[in-house]
């Protein structure tokens, strides 16, 4: 922004300026390059910005630290809870296995008991059936016997008049008497 100065100085230093216009170089004029003011501004910015920005950044850093720490704590807690629950799960599974085993055992026992009971029942039933059968059979036999006796007697009584005459009667009586006599 040195052009006003250049403009003023052009009159006096036209030759020097013209030669300097040609290429790259370094401008050594401290006032013209505004070096002092820029240094002051940069210094002020550095001085205040450092505190301000430094505070923001350290706050940010500490809040991140706190967040990470908190998250790690929560993670640990969660891991502990997980381990705890896994232990509980294992216990429960053990318990379940135990219950199942005892239930199996009891089922076997119960089955045996029921089978035995049934066996016994069957035995008892069979016995009673056999008994019934025997009773029935003996009753039937007795009945038959009586019937046969009756029929035989009837038949005998029916035939008796035709067959029985004095001789026969006598021979029978005699035989009977002899039998009696034989027996004594």
């Amino acid at each position, binding site marked *: *922004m*040195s*052009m*006003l*100065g*250049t*403009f003023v100085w052009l009159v006096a230093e036209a030759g020097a300026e013209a030669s*300097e*216009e*040609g*290429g*790259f*170089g*370094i*401008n050594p004029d401290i*006032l*013209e*390059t*505004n*070096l*002092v*003011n*820029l240094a*002051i*501004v*940069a210094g*002020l*910015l550095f001085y205040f910005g450092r505190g301000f*920005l430094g505070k*923001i*950044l350290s706050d*940010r*850093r500490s809040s*991140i*630290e706190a967040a*990470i720490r908190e998250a790690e704590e929560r993670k640990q807690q969660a891991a502990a809870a997980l381990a705890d629950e896994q232990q509980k799960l294992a216990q429960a599974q053990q318990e379940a296995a135990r219950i199942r085993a005892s239930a199996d055992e009891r089922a076997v026992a119960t089955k045996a008991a029921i089978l035995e009971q049934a066996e016994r029942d069957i035995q008892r039933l069979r016995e009673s059936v056999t008994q019934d059968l025997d009773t029935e059979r003996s009753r039937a036999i007795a009945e038959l016997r009586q019937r046969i006796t009756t029929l035989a007697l009837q038949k005998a009584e029916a035939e008796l008049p035709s067959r029985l005459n004095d001789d026969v009667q006598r021979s029978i009586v005699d035989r009977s008497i002899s039998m009696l006599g034989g027996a004594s």
Partner: protein
Amino acid sequence: MLSFPATPILPLASLEVGHHFYWQIGNLKVHGQVFLVSWFVIALLVLASVLATRNIQRIPSGIQNLMEYALDFVRELAKNQLGEKEFRPWVPFIGTLFLFIFVSNWSGALIPWKLIKLPEGELAAPTNDINTTVALALLVSLAYFYAGFRKKGLGYFAKYVQPTPVLLPIAILEDFTKPLSLSFRLFGNILADELVVAVLVLLVPLFVPLPVMLLGLFTSAIQALVFATLAGAYIHEALEGHGEEEHH
């Protein structure tokens, strides 16, 4: 590229503004001093990014902390403008705009460029050349057209006649005024600040320009913020249309 026309009314200012260190590239005459300082700014940003990401710690410290803070800042800026849902893909663009403009402005206000003498023209903030700011503003225009077309396809044009077709000319005009106002605001602020400082330095070389220089630092930062914020706002407008889309 265009050279800024020298104003014939103010011969002193025309000496200031109109002189450039021209490079001839093909048919183009480009302003070399702008390129030099732009490269410097770009190198500074790249260097800072590389240094910040070279040795990433879990708990950030030093330059990593600083750059993370900058990233947080531009991300907040983008989020405030574009909303929680859309902001993420636009953070690089808006963040680059902000950081480039900010570092450009402050390099112009803090670094004694005049120590280095060019054959013609002088080194200064790249943003005090209208070409730079127009390029940035046109990038913003491209970005918001891209955002609108990508989101709605050709339905993007519906926003031009959306409340009423009567406003169509104004809606079309807006697409021209947006880059125009963006570029001229930034360019004007930075150039005016540098000119005021230069004039004061000519009149009273020591201490008196200090308040203006400090004010210039403040203005430069604000202008970078304004440019990035407006870029975000324009992209958001293109994404949202005229309010009908918000109910979805």
